[in-house]
């Protein structure tokens, strides 16, 4: 008979051991899948790492992919800390990009770049924040389901940008091709060490969000509301205001990702600019145990998988979708391993003797 009991407290070391075993298992399992598909698993793993970190240029590309993931994950983190399931990162990113573009297309070309970029970032944070504020307000006032609400807001955002791209904002100089005009040079983020300065923003934000969640009153309130609404109410916290504040921050951070992607990567606004980061960030946030520094590491690991996956196609003629499958398999194992951190399995024999298995 297998008995399941809840663990009182898990020592940090054992937690790492369980996590490491899970990742090891998932790599073995992913390797098996790759072998079944007819490729050499070790070769594939090696090429993923080489493809992501092999040369200076590839490292730069990996960082470029990690930046939007990190910032979006931080945004999602603030919402998840409150158990507010913000699935709307995609929409908030794209609306942030919309806000930034609105500014970028309407400023004079002679405006100094720092001013222009600050205005764009502010507009992006406001637009992303508004996109998150709407579901937050409905949740606070009417108790609507935020998962579905934020999910649907994604489509409104994407279709809105598609409309702009084909309609009012279509670039007259693009000879009929439906695209929005490119940004002027003063609206493009500058580079430092070969990578646009988004990486500095990301590092600063990791620190800021860490301090906000762990060392400020508002951050503490968000955690309490997430753990138990009843406790929060009993302590006299204004729950609606906590929900709305944290979602404004969450949406604002996602919006900032949109501005960075629009300004540094696309140099214009497109409907596909969010690139699935809003969804991937949900997973990285969860795997990062809702802690800003760990999230940063997880995001970098994910960026390595993304970049390495793209390289696989060139190096080994392995479709990059294999990297998606490996991602999925690793996640399944890590998600499953969380059970063993919270519960203890014990096998009790016939005479009631107990043996621990995990």
């Amino acid at each position, binding site marked *: 008979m297998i008995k399941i009991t809840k663990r009182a407290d898990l020592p940090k070391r054992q937690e790492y051991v369980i996590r490491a075993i899970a990742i090891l298992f998932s790599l073995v399992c992913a390797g098996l899948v790759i072998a079944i*598909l007819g490729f050499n698993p070790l070769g594939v793993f090696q090429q993923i790492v080489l493809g992501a970190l092999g040369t200076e240029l590839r490292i730069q590309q990996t960082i470029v992919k990690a930046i939007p993931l990190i910032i979006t994950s931080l945004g999602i983190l603030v919402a998840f800390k409150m158990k507010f*399931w913000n*699935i709307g990162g995609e929409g908030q990113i794209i609306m942030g990009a919309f806000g930034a573009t609105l500014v970028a297309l309407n400023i004079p070309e002679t405006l100094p770049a720092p001013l222009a970029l600050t205005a764009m970032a502010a507009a992006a944070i406001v637009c992303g924040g508004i996109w998150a504020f709407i579901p937050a307000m409905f949740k606070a006032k009417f108790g609507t*389901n935020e*998962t*579905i609400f934020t*999910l*649907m807001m994604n*489509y409104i955002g994407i279709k809105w940008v598609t409309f702009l791209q084909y309609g009012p904002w279509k670039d007259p100089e693009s000879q009929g091709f439906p695209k929005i005009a490119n940004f002027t040079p003063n609206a493009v983020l500058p580079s430092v060490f070969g990578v646009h300065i988004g990486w500095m923003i990301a590092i600063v934000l990791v620190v800021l969000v860490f301090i906000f969640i762990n060392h400020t009153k508002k951050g503490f309130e968000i955690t309490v509301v997430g753990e138990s609404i009843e406790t929060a109410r009993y302590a006299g916290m204004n729950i609606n205001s906590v929900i709305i504040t944290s979602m404004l921050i969450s949406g604002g951070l996602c919006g900032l990702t949109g501005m960075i992607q629009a300004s540094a990567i696309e140099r214009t606004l497109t409907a596909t600019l969010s690139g699935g980061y809003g*969804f*991937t960030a*949900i*997973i990285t946030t*969860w795997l990062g145990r809702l802690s800003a520094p760990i999230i940063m590491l997880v995001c970098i690991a994910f960026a390595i998988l993304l970049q390495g996956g793209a390289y696989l196609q060139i190096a080994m003629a392995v*479709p990059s*979708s*294999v*990297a*998606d*499958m490996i*991602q*999925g*398999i690793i*996640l*399944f194992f890590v*998600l*499953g391993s*969380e*059970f063993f951190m*919270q*519960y203890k399995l014990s096998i009790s024999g016939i005479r009631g003797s107990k043996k621990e298995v995990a």
Partner: protein
Amino acid sequence: MTAFLAAAVIAGTPLLFATLGELITEKAGNLNLGVEGMMLMGAVMGFAVGLWTGNPFLALLGAIGAGALGAAVYAVLTVTLRANQVVTGLTLTIFGSGYASFVGKSFMGVPAPASVKAIFATMEIPLLSSIPVIGPTFFKQDIFIYFGYLITICASLYLWKTRKGLNLKAVGENAAAADASGINVNLYKYVHIILGGALCGLGGAYMSLVTIPVWQENVVAGRGWIAVALVIFASWKPSKALDLSVPYFREDR
């Protein structure tokens, strides 16, 4: 006008299947955001098996199996291992889309085999199909669509008129109370989550075999997400899912 309506019914059918699948899953108290992934797995397996065997029934069986397999992984993680449902569902979507584009790589742009398409030929239902407007819209369709109507009716009856269906609702609404009254909660969850996945897989197969009968990357194109939302618009009622999935088709893809 009727041609347009009939096209709307065809375009809405994958949504109907996916919505019913997700509805049954949610009745068991689990929100599975992996619909998109399960539909893609069903779409690619349906297409692949159809291509290899030329047998439409094996193709649909393949789709059912793929959708159910995806749902089974989700069920093990969320029911037995109590993992977070939102994150597990999203992971399933990532895995499913990777799986679909990998398996589908070799037959990109290949049309669905004629022997499989034959089963989806239009079949008129006598009498009913001669009703003006309604007839050509709903009763001059292929067998899969009639199967959709049938499943909707069965799901309605099952959920409201049978003991098992009522037990299922108890499991979803208050698992502790259901457990106390002697219902095997985990078994109910497993069975219905997997059943839901199988329906999503079928919806996906309809996409790749009939709606867009040529294999292409991301053939489901976000319909899985729409299905998740439709469950709510349908207020968790199969009959409403039928009304709603038809106008919610999207022509732009």
